[in-house]
């Protein structure tokens, strides 16, 4: 066992998969430059030296390297593509959505695209174009699996499961969760370290995780919002409201078994999402709850999300944009009384 942050756990996970399977390689911008950074968030730091020729630095060409990952995957490789900031997925989305996601179906089940796309998201003082919550744009794409990791244990286990999966898998990571110390410290960074087992393990790509048990209200979140939900649950407990916190984790498909089991206990649910409310993943989850578990609901579904605006730069507005612990607490209080 060792304690690691998300960046280190992903790094080890990638290294172990590359050691296990020669078909695995990494592709992206600034991921293996000598004297460089190992990607914008240090995830691949040192891997280029360990795996010569298998950490491929590309030109700034997201559509291009994503398409190359798709093509290489079709020919038997298992690429892990690195999108420096999730916002640039818009450039790569044609290859992801029109090619990677549909190739299996269009080919009548004859083609496999076993690729991974990793991308960091989150509002972090960088302004509107380096901040967006991108999950929403990919969760409705048939043929793509979408996961979001909120702690180091999951990050490593999900990365490994994604590499071994025969389908395109998108892994969303949060800039404020890579690490909260040293080079990775930035304002608002949260401790997402975990105890990491020495032995090989995977975390399934289609399961939510109950992070805290409670019987009065269920709070659903992912990425940074899982941590905020946990902090809110601690405060709520002090006033006698026992919140159950679920890390949705698998955003496509969504695990209604785990969510449903929780709702049968609590009958009340809050979905917390960083990102505009309209068209968010929380909208899909709310609709899914109505379809799968409306019998359990004792009150309408509540959402805590960002307003329908681009991410502002100025810290006062950015903090107001991002759902926070007080807003979750307030929503839970009101719902518990309902």
């Amino acid at each position, binding site marked *: 066992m060792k304690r690691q942050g998300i960046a280190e756990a992903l790094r080890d996970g990638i290294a172990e998969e590359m050691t296990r399977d020669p078909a695995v390689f990494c592709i992206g*911008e*600034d991921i293996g*430059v*000598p*004297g*460089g*950074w190992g990607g914008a968030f240090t995830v691949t730091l040192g891997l280029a030296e360990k795996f010569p020729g298998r950490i491929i*630095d*590309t*030109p*700034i*060409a*997201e*559509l*291009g390297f994503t398409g190359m990952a798709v093509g290489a995957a079709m020919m038997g490789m298992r690429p892990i593509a690195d999108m420096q900031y999730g*916002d*640039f997925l818009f*450039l790569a989305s044609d290859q992801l959505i029109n090619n990677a996601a549909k190739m299996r179906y269009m080919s009548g089940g004859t083609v496999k695209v076993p690729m991974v796309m990793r991308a960091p998201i989150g509002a972090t*003082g*960088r*302004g*509107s*174009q*380096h901040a967006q919550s991108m999950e929403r744009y990919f969760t409705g794409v048939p043929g793509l699996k979408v996961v979001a990791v909120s702690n180091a244990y999951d990050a490593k286990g999900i990365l490994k499961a994604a590499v071994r999966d025969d389908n395109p898998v998108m892994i969303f990571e949060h800039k404020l969760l890579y690490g909260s110390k040293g*080079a990775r410290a930035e*304002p608002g960074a949260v401790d997402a370290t975990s105890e990491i087992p020495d032995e090989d393990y995977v975390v399934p790509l289609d399961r939510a995780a109950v992070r805290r048990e409670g019987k009065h209200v269920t709070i659903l979140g992912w990425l940074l919002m899982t941590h905020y939900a946990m902090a809110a649950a601690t405060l709520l407990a002090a006033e006698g409201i026992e919140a159950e916190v679920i890390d949705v984790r698998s955003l496509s498909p969504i695990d209604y078994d785990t969510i449903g089991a929780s709702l049968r206990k609590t009958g009340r649910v809050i979905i917390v999402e960083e990102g505009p409310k309209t068209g968010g993943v929380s909208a899909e989850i709310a609709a899914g709850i109505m379809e799968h578990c409306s019998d359990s609901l004792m009150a309408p579904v509540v959402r805590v999300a960002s*307003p*329908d*605006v*681009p991410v*502002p*730069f*100025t*810290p*006062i*507005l950015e903090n*107001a*944009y991002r759902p926070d612990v007080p807003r979750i607490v307030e929503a839970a209080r009101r719902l518990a009384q309902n």
Partner: protein
Amino acid sequence: MTKSSSPAAAHDRAFALKFYEQMVLIREFEERVKFLFLEGTMPGTIHQCQGQEATAVGVCAALRSDDFITSTFRGHGHALAKGLTVQEMLDELFGATTGCCKGKGGSMHMGNMDKGMVPGIAIVAGGIPLAAGMALAFKLQRRPQVVACFFGDGAVAEGAFHEGVNMAAIWDLPVILVCENNLYGASTRIDKVMKNPRVSDRAASYGFRGETVDGNDVLTVYAAAQRAAEECRAGKGPVLLELLTYRRTGHSRRDACHYQAKDEREAWFARDPIERFAVQLLARGDVSQSDLDAIKADIDQQITTGVENAKQAPQPTLADLTTDVFA
């Protein structure tokens, strides 16, 4: 690299000193901003342009006030050269409502349409098709304006470069494609990502003129930009201007540039655009070192006052969060 062929003496004294003043303004602005970041008083992240002052100043000097520029994440120098004030920029960096984008843009999206600068576009190459579109509007409206589109060597690899440049070419659009080739895109050196590292060569394959000049010689840049602007205004655009330069500072806030070779850094530091221009100015005979010192002292004072004001500038209220989304 083309050698400087335009000594400062060819220009009127005040005109030449203005170039110097603008470059020093950019340098000192950037140095102060860096200090404020390290000190922890300024929020966000920064991409700075120390060492590249001559490209911004030389190009913008060749433009008219109603011409436009588009810029990138590394836009502070472009903004100052296009006439944004120190105050509106510092206010923006401090997230104040008096900033050029009311604090909503920040460092990477600096701009002011009244001064002919589109808010910086932080998506690499994202400004190229957009600038071509602006130039298309000028052509359709028969307006005599031009757009100077700043981008880095890294942008050339993006699909947006090809698409935007090709359309600018086939429709002869008045856009000066200004590639600031500082040898690196983030940590990646151009020789790793370009088989032909001469960016201006690409122009010929699209059927228009490109040229590469010393981007650390402000008068050379100015002369090249003037030629380009004239051609664009005469309906003979676009022009691809490759300006060879070097970034003296990190790619962004915390970068220590370990990927840059020491001898390369030293060679380029010896070609600093401000120091070189100072030598040219002093050689004229009618400019003294104390003239140059006085310019710097004035600028330092201006920036100090600007910082004091920006720290007191009004911060937004929550009501501002949802304004400005739609026109």
